């Protein structure tokens, strides 16, 4: 039975283990027998810390030069962190983080059809374009050191050729840049992500939901103050199916108005996003040849008034300025931002940017993502400290991320058992599917891609090109293994899983062996010189000399695990025994290297960092 947690635990309470461990079978000069400790936390060695930061920020290992630099001078860490924050891999991490916050990457959900103006594209093109649209905006803001608050205030957006056709966004098709700065041209207020087509599609909340889902998204994702986790008591015969009855109830019933007096005014700003941008609606519109609806005979469009097919053909008219005040028809509370007036969504964005809950929430989310904690579990003092850094930097996301990864708690690997009750942040981190994919690619050049099309997927007019083309299996749920590796599918599985599961290990094993073999075949068959090889720079296919093999293993251990070890180290010996055993069993040299490298690629020090 755990003792009751008390806040006033003296930091002199020390577990017997606080001075690190010695006498283990896995040595290596980076792991001292006595790790730094302040009596409460035990800290990683500098190179281990570098590796953890590199994986967290980029999903890739530090280079050998970087490890050597930090080994020689631990103070070099700070400069490397700054360098990491300017890499494409970090940009990918930024997008991963925001995709998880806003649950954007859901390939198991319907895509808009590749018909009409989008005929000739495939489902992968459409999926990728749709989910990248809001993520490109965030990437641009973060990587160009713009104030992070622009994610809710930006008066621009990003488009590629697919989106330009999908929503009629300005785009230079002659340019070599696939993704270009653009803007929405249907009259919607400019408010960064709050104006995003895909955000509004993901957080669909029209119809009888009266945009409350979108308001909940704003409150929950941006302010960490969602409504939907609260108990909802519906009693007393309120006809929840009657929109007018609900409107009255949320104004007058105590149990309803507690939330709705704030929720509904916030929802009031989204009424212009009235169009239900769904696959079947768009498909039906294109099938009807996008003719303007003839209202003269009194018939309404099949999906309801104001949902005429002409709005749903590419380019889709997602926003309707005439609908912005439709909340009045339902006698709802007037739009407001938590009691503060705001003219439109643009001003709501400005309010959010100025709201201290926003900076506090994003500080929590950034830290929680990196430390692999729910944002609610981030300790108050850590959150407050990071919020201050964030605000003092002028809302520079890189500065926030820098503070996160350089925070003492992130440099620790364990605490005393007593301390762990009040500081859940410390501990081994688990490699995420996206990180593992980048880790594998950076080391081996291998991407786990398959042609996902079923026969006949491209035939017929109405099928259009419903094929998916090439799909990366580590980051797909429709065909691949993202959720099975502990990732989110953004639809049903909305929280990552950091406990290593049997299916995660199965996935890693298959990928590790394929990637290892891919790299080995490249190194022995295609690399023009030893220097251009990816992994096996010190041996050839006919190298069997134990000393040479061990020397190669020394390099591989450092490159893959980040651990420097001498030739005769026990852990090097373990890898060598594996190499020799495969050969003894009749395996070729390539087979032996495949199994040995694959084992390193799924080592516990890869699964955890």
């Amino acid at each position, binding site marked *: 039975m755990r003792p009751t947690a008390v806040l006033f635990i003296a930091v002199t309470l020390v577990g017997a283990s606080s001075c690190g461990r010695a006498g283990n079978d896995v040595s290596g000069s980076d792991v001292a027998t006595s790790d730094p400790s302040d009596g409460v936390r035990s800290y990683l060695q500098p190179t281990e810390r570098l590796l953890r930061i590199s994986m967290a920020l980029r999903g890739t290992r530090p280079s050998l030069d970087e490890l050597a630099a930090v080994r020689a001078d631990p103070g070099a860490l700070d400069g490397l962190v700054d360098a990491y924050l300017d890499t494409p891999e970090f940009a990918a991490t930024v997008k991963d983080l925001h995709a998880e916050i806003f649950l954007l990457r859901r390939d198991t959900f319907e895509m808009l059809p590749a018909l009409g103006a989008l005929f000739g594209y495939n489902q992968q093109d459409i999926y990728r374009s749709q989910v990248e649209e809001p993520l490109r905006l965030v990437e641009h803001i973060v990587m160009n050191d713009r104030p992070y608050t622009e994610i809710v205030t930006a008066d621009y957006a990003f488009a590629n050729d697919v989106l330009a056709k999908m929503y009629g966004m300005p785009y230079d098709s002659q340019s070599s840049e696939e993704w270009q700065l653009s803007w929405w041209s249907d009259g919607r207020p400019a408010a960064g992500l709050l104006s995003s087509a895909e955000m509004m599609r993901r957080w669909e909340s029209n119809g009888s939901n009266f945009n409350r889902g979108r308001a909940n998204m704003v409150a929950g994702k941006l302010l960490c103050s969602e409504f939907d986790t609260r108990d909802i008591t519906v009693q007393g015969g309120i006809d929840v199916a009657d929109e007018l009855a609900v409107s009255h109830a949320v104004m007058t019933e105590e149990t309803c108005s507690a939330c709705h007096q704030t929720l509904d005014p916030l929802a009031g700003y989204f009424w212009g996003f009235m169009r239900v941008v769904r696959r079947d609606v768009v498909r039906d519109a294109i099938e009807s040849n996008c003719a303007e609806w003839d209202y003269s005979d009194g018939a309404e469009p099949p999906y309801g008034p104001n949902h005429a097919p002409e709005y749903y053909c590419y380019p889709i008219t997602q926003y309707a300025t005439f609908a912005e005040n439709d909340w009045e028809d339902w006698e709802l509370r007037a739009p407001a931002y938590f009691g503060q007036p705001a003219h439109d969504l643009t001003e709501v964005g400005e309010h959010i940017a100025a709201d201290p809950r926003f900076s506090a929430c994003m500080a929590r989310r950034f830290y929680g993502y990196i430390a692999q904690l729910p944002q609610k579990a981030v300790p108050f003092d850590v959150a407050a400290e990071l919020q201050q850094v964030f605000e003092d930097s002028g809302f520079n996301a890189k500065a926030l991320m820098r503070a996160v990864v350089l925070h003492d708690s992130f440099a620790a690997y364990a605490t005393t058992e007593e301390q762990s009750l009040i500081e859940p942040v410390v501990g081994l981190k688990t490699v995420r599917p996206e990180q593992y994919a980048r880790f594998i690619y950076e080391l081996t050049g291998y991407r786990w891609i398959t042609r996902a099309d079923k026969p006949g997927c491209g035939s017929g007019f109405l099928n259009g090109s419903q094929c998916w083309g090439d799909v990366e299996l580590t980051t797909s749920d429709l065909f691949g293994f993202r959720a099975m590796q502990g990732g989110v599918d953004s639809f049903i599985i909305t929280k990552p899983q950091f406990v290593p*599961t049997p299916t995660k290990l199965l996935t890693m094993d298959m990928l590790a062996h394929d990637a290892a073999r891919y790299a080995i075949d490249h190194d022995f068959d295609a690399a023009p010189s030893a220097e251009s090889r990816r992994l096996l720079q010190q041996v050839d296919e006919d190298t069997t000399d134990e000393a040479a093999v061990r020397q190669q293993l020394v390099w591989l251990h450092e490159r893959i695990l980040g651990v420097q070890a001498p030739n005769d180290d026990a852990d090097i010996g373990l890898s060598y025994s594996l190499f020799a055993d495969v050969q003894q069993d009749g395996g070729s040299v390539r087979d032996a290297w495949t199994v040995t490298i694959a084992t390193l690629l799924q080592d516990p020090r890869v*699964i955890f960092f």
Partner: protein
Amino acid sequence: MTPVSRRNFMLGSAALAALGQRVARAGQGGSRPEFLVVCIAEGGWDPLMSFDPKSPDLAVDGPWVDFAASEYTRTYNDNQFVQLNDEHRLSVTNFFELWGDRTAVVNGLWQGSIVHEPCRIRLLTGTTQAKHPDFATRFGAWAGADNPIGSIDFSGLSYAGALSATTGRVGSRSQLKALLDPDAAYGPPAGESGRRPLYQPSTADHDRVRGVIEQRAAALRSLRGEGGANDQRLDDLMTSIERQARLRDNAQSFVGGLDLASIPALEDQVPLATNLLHKDLCRAVTLKHELDWDTHTGNMRQHANYSSFFRAVNTLLDDLHSKGLLDRTLVCVLSEMGRTPRLNAAGGKDHWTHSSQLLIGAGVKGGHTYGATDALVESMKMDLASGDPTGSAQDSRAAGELLKYDNFAAGILQHLGLDPGEVYPTVTPFTGWSEYA
């Protein structure tokens, strides 16, 4: 599927008894359930169409709105008053004919939310947070220590939490097959030829890799264990390594039934699931019906949904019975929410926090409906020990209490043999339906 007649069913049971097979129900001096099947109608079913009928005289929109002529009600067994329609939902009739006496209908479960995911979390975990394991995962981890895997999720809806090392996901399109059957592995991308996987480890390779990883995990523990979270994380890794190997070793006994790259309908999941249980490969499975029950427009779709769903449920129960498993299995047929009593302007029904669930099989005091909703389809208070309704939830003087998601989950855990107090220390389990109470 041709419905099995009650006569044939009874004859079948007699035949089994003649063969000396165990047909006595668990709980009648027998042991607790050994297996658990959770079968989910995701999106929110309309209990007025089945388990919780109301009179057309009330201010509710029941199924008679769609098919007045063919709707009728009937009482089965003790007090199972059900809404039926042989023309449009025959499989529900078949269900009560065949399995009603093994079934506890639970009406008036209060979910406390009208949002899908919070409702699903509450129903399956008995808590408001997704970080907690659902009861299928808990049971699988507890009962399945010696099985290749504790619980398997076909649905994608399972919450595994800290017990993830004991669970496995099949994947939205049975991707597990691609991981276990080298002949089913995904092919190369466009423009590339050659086989995949690029390297197929032998059994000896797998054993060697496993041995090295286990040694290194032990070494990492001695270096970074320190007790607490890290040790737990490494324990989980070791558990998963063991489970991974067991899955591989037993793969051929079940991967053949998986169809890679197609989303399996519930009727396709059923034989896979019962096979896994029958071969003792796991202790719990979670299944999901493939149709969308979230009928905000066109509530009429619920008829076809019920028809399809209960066809599959009947198949499931029949399959379990024919494999000698039904007396050893608790089957939970669930939906995360109900639907509003009245239709909305689009002819659909919206979310409703008061729901109904079914519990079937081992140790269930079947043939009875527990709990109730009132004329407004709102949950009534009940005596959690008996399941008898006691009064309106709005009457503070009425005895009993509202049946909530935590009472419900706690009762299931207790029925399965776990201690609900460890998970829900202040919650009274709902046990009226359980022979083990």
